[in-house]
Structure formats: C-alpha cells, structure tokens
C-alpha cells in the first residue's frame, strides 16, 4: 500500500511539471490554433444571427455591417405567422423529432443490449445488416416507401415520417449503444439476476441508468436526424401548409430568383435553438458516449 501511495506521489508532480514544461511559444501556438478553429466553427452561426436582425433589403448590401437598421421585426413577423404557419411547422417538427428520438432510442437500446449480452444465431448478420442499411441511397427507396406508407394509411402523416426516420437513426444508434453496453461489466447483470430480476428487468432497471452517456449521445443523434431532415420530409408530407416540417416550410423564404435572407436567418435561428439546447444538455456526455460506442465497432 505504502509503495503504491509513494509511487503515485512520484508520478503526480512529475506530470504537472511536464504540463507547465511546455514552452510559452508552444502554448501560444496551441491556443492560436484552437481559437482560429473555434472562430471558423462559430462564425457562420454568428453571421446568421447578425443577419437575422436586418431587414431583407439590408441583408443583401454589398458592404456587410454588423448592424444595419437591425431590429426584432423579422422575428415578430415570423412568430406572428405572416410568413407562413411557422409555429405549426415548429410544432410538427418538435412532435416528429421527439417521437423519433423516443422510439429510436428505445428500439436501439433493446437491440443493442441483446447484441451486447446474448449470443444468438443471426447476431453477426444483424449487425452487418445495420452497416449495409446505412449505404442505402434514399433514391432507390423513396417510391416504394411512398407506396408502403399509402398501403399502411400513413402517407402524409407524422407517424409515417417518424418510422422512416427511425430506419435511418436506429442502425447507428444500435451500434453506439452496443459498444456502450459492452463497457458495462456483466457482473452487474448477474447480480441483478441473482436478486430475482428478469432479463428485461436487469436491462431496464440496472443497465439503462448506467448507460446514460451512451443514451444521451444516441438521443442527440436521433433528434438531429429527425430535426434536420429535408428529402423525405419534402417527398412524403402532403403539400398542405399545416403538415409541413420546418425543413420543408423554410424553403418558402428561398424563391426562384430572390431570397428573403433577413427572414430566413431569423427563422434559422429559431430552428437552431432547440437543437442547440439539446446539444448543450448532452455535450458533456458526447466524448465518453461516442468513444465507447460505435467507434469501437
């Protein structure tokens, strides 16, 4: 024990020394690189924010300024419904994204758990098929899917779209969660079984709470998949204004020869807010959740 403690003490100061050992020049270089990268990452979003306060006519001036007759007019007009049923689209998108997240995460958690804990015939081909499903171009699926949704009576409805999004989200989420469940020791399962829990009880009551980082990342992924999808949404939702999602509805601002940039920017900010909130809630789990997940294969 004493040996352990002393060797630990030996290591710690040495390590700290190494950190501060970095020359000031290297430190400056490191921070400079990170600052430049962060600026590049943030600038487009910042620029949309700046533009969102400008009137459409000022947004297309050839010498851009930070403020140019800026006001909240764009926002009030969009939220007031002058530019299409924005709040209805917003509601549709929220509903579709939340349903997709809940269903996709639940399905991929059960599947990922089964793939992580049980050996069963067909497991390998199941995991392989998830990879292959990612390769499917929607162009080949879109007509048949449309027919199926009609046959199921789900064409033009949110539920149909939720199911379609699940097929894109579930394979990747399953991969991630399987990897995450692999890092949770099986002793926990065995202890639960000894205490009389069913296999499903073990999964639901013991493993799920431990898998929070993994679940956070998969929720984030599933939410974003549904929140930002354009192609299926424009193909499958009926043309009626009130069933559109945001991704489809926002295209009213982009007309053939002229784009209402000020309004589009304001609407974009409103759309980005929920995604950024979800992102902020899960971001501290992102690295751990993702690293032990899909990326280990």
């Amino acid at each position, binding site marked *: 024990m004493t040996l352990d403690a002393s060797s630990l003490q030996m290591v710690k100061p040495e390590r700290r020394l190494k950190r501060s050992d970095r020359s000031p020049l290297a430190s400056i270089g490191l921070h400079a690189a990170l600052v430049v990268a962060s600026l590049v*990452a943030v600038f487009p979003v910042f620029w949309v924010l700046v533009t969102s306060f400008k009137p459409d006519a000022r*947004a297309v001036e050839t010498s851009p300024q930070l403020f140019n007759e800026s006001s909240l007019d764009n926002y009030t007009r969009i939220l007031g419904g002058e530019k299409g049923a924005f709040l209805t689209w917003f509601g549709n998108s929220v509903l579709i994204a939340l349903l997709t997240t809940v269903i996709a995460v639940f399905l991929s958690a059960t599947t990922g758990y089964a793939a992580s804990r049980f050996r069963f015939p067909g497991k390998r081909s199941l995991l392989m098929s998830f990879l292959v499903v990612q390769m499917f*171009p929607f162009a080949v699926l879109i007509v048949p899917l449309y027919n199926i949704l009609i046959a199921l009576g789900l064409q033009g409805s949110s539920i149909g779209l939720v199911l379609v999004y699940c097929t894109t989200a579930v394979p990747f989420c399953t991969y991630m969660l399987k990897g995450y469940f692999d890092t949770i020791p099986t002793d926990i399962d065995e202890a639960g079984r000894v205490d009389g829990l069913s296999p499903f009880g073990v999964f639901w009551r013991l493993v799920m709470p431990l898998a929070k980082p993994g679940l956070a990342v998969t929720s984030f992924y599933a939410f974003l998949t549904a929140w930002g999808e354009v192609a299926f949404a424009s193909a499958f939702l009926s043309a009626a204004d009130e069933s559109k999602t945001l991704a489809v509805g926002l295209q009213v601002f982009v007309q053939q020869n002229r784009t209402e940039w000020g309004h589009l920017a304001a609407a974009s900010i409103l759309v980005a807010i929920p995604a950024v909130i*979800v992102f902020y809630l899960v971001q501290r789990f992102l690295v751990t959740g993702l690293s032990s997940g899909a990326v280990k294969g």
Partner: protein
Amino acid sequence: MRRFLERHWYAYAMVLPVVVVIAVLVLYPLAQGVFFTFTNINEANIANPVLDRPASYEGVGFKNYLNVLSGDASYGAFWSTLVRTLIWTFGCVFFHYTIGLGLALLLNRQVKGRTLYRVLLILPWAVPAFISAFAWKYMFNAQYGIINQLLRAVGLPDPVWLGQSDWALFAVIVVNVWLGTPFMMVALLGGLQSIPGDLYEAAEVDGATPWQRFRHVTLPGLRSVSSTVVLLGIIWTFNMFPVIYLIAGPNPNTRILVTYAFERFFSGASRDYAVASTYGVLILSVLLVFATVYRRALRKQGEVW
C-alpha cells in the same frame, strides 16, 4: 426447436421490433426499387390510388442500366458523375479526418478553457444541416457574401463561387468539411482518451521523439476507431444529399450520383422513377464493393472487425 427458442427467447424478443421495422421499411422497398429498375416506371404510368388509376408500366429488361452505364449526358453522364462523386467523397473524408484528428490532438492536451473550445468546435454538428446550408449559401454569394467581401478587402480575386464552374464543387466541399469535422473530432478524441497513458510514458522512457510517439503509439491506438469512422464517413458522404442540393441546387458542376438520382426523381414533368432507382441500385453496388474491399484490406492487416 423448442429448446432453441427457450434459450434465445429474450434475445429475439428484444431484437424483433427493429428487424420488423427494417424489413418492412428498408428491405421490402429495396426489393421493389430493384424491380423498378427493370421497368419504365414514371409519374405517367405508376399506379395512382388518388386518381384510381392502375399501373401501366412495362418491363424493359436491362435498358435502364445500359442507358445509364453508357455515360450518355441525357442520363446524367454516369462515369464523369462517378468521378466527381469520388472526388467529393474522398476530398471531404480526407479533410474531416485530418482536421478532426488535429483538433482532437490539441483538445487532448491540458489546455486552459478546454471545455469551452470543445463546445465551440462541436457546434457545427449541433446546427441542423439545412440551416448551415442556407448560412453558407448566403456567405458564398458572389455580390453580398461575406467571403467575397473579405477576399476583396485583402485584394484577392473574388470568384463566383456557386456558378457554373468547379468553384462550386470546391465550395460545397468546404461546407461539408465544416459540417463533418466535429463528428470525427469527437470520435477521435474519445479514441485518444482510451489510449493508456503508460504507453506514452514507456515510449518516452525509451527516448521516442514526439513524432515517433505519434507514429507508433497514437496512430496504432486509434486504428479501430479510425477504421470505423472512416468507413461510416465515406458511406455518409457518398450519399450526402442536402448540402449539395440546398447550396448549389441542380448545378451540373456539383452533381454527384445521389443528387442526380434526386433530380431525376423530382424535377421535370416526367419524374423518371426508373432511372432514379437505377442510380440508387448503382450507388448501393459501388458502396457494397467498396465496403467489402475495405474490410478485406483491414482483415489482412490483422484487424478483427
């Protein structure tokens, strides 16, 4: 059979919902889509339940494949589009990976404000892709875009980015690199953190230079992470549709296989489902061949995957 079911009951019950959904919504549509490629189906002859019109398309054998593979311009010039798709895919994934790895290495050090940097750097991932596409389209505008403003201010030429030239392809690659780097960065950062620190210490004791440590400790430690994310990245980028479609529209200079399939599907009065599906099947075949070769190459290097 009974014992078999008894033993695997739980596993199958947990997997079943996903299998059913995927079978109904992916495999069956795929089979039907493959069938469509042997017909001349389009908007005019597809069954239309609304108009109560029965289907009247006919089988045409391999005609669609012959037309597309001939590389004829009226069928999307398949081969040159394929080359452009490959430039797009490998260009994007190369920069995703190298920039992502570079940033992950920086973030993996002890830096002040690391959490803040990380949040800012992941931000492009959190913004919905169609929003980013609009933002970049605005910034790339030739007259009032901020990018050309900056170029003019420092006296550089200001090209028409999204016009009928290869600048458009360059521009969409820039946007997609911006969009896709955070995912790679986060994945690789996780990979870096899972490399045991003793390996570096041991290497240092043995007198390895920083480059040697990177080459012989970091890169091998990232092997399994990298092989998965690169494969996923290639598959995703190959089929990446919204970025190109929303930024450049139906511009032949940015046309990749999947956007052409979509153009064929949606634009024009005819809505040529048959050719769109043919493109879809060809995309899938290219990716399947690629994934098989990729896995085989990995296995040769002794990767169990």
